[in-house]
């Protein structure tokens, strides 16, 4: 699944570790989501969207 996580994170000058800290997940989890290797669960997707004040659709796109 495509996502804008890396861009959103870069806009805030957050490292992967900082984002992971805010989401209460590991840095590897953030990296896996950013690179599309892991699709987050719905609860985590909501946490990510809320952290950036966006909707899930603003962050994630399931269209290829």
């Amino acid at each position: 699944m495509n996502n804008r996580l890396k861009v959103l994170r870069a806009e805030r000058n957050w490292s992967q570790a900082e984002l992971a800290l805010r989401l209460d997940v590991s840095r590897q989890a953030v990296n896996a989501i950013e690179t599309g290797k892991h699709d987050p669960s719905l609860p985590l997707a909501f946490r990510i969207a809320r952290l950036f004040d966006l909707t899930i659709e603003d962050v994630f796109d399931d269209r290829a």
Partner: protein
Amino acid sequence: MTEPDELPEDAGFDARAAAIAAVAGIVFLFAAGALTGMLAAAFQEGVRSPLKFAGIAALVVAAMLGCLWVLRRRLGGLWAGPVSPRIRRARLLMAFFLVIGAAIGILLSEFGPVDLWGGSARELSPTLAIAVILVWVVVVPIATIAWWRQIDEHEALAYKDGGFFAANAYATIAPAWWFGWRAGLFPAPDQIAIFLVTMSVWGAVWFVRRFN
């Protein structure tokens, strides 16, 4: 240049680094087992040549320190950066499992059915056996449940994937070995060997999924 607390976007699994780390880990365990055996033999039978004993022990300790240095160099970056309290607890529990695993590995190498050091395998005392059993059936399951409650969903998925492959490895190896043994093709199935292969598959898949 990649920031210390940032993994590259296109970071694939570094098979070379993982292989080097795995070799360093195995050498560390063997060296720890050798040192344990040396110390146990020294306590039981005394030391004939203290200078020679100290020299060999120093070499073994140096090898262990070298392995730790390699492990830190190859894998240290994986744990860099700030972490939440939950992830920190998960890491501490994982470190605990590594210590338990190393201790069990040393015991297996010293008292297991196959003596890795070329001598005769010593008998395991009932006291030590009961201590190991208690740790294995009480402490480790409790710590595993505690760890499971702390990890994030990415690691949980890696653990489940590892379990899937491990279960299939066990379901493949155990019956095949048993049939081969019944037909006189193989020696009797070694439960510890099958256990070690199963857990190795589980650990390897978890590691690749977790850090890929």
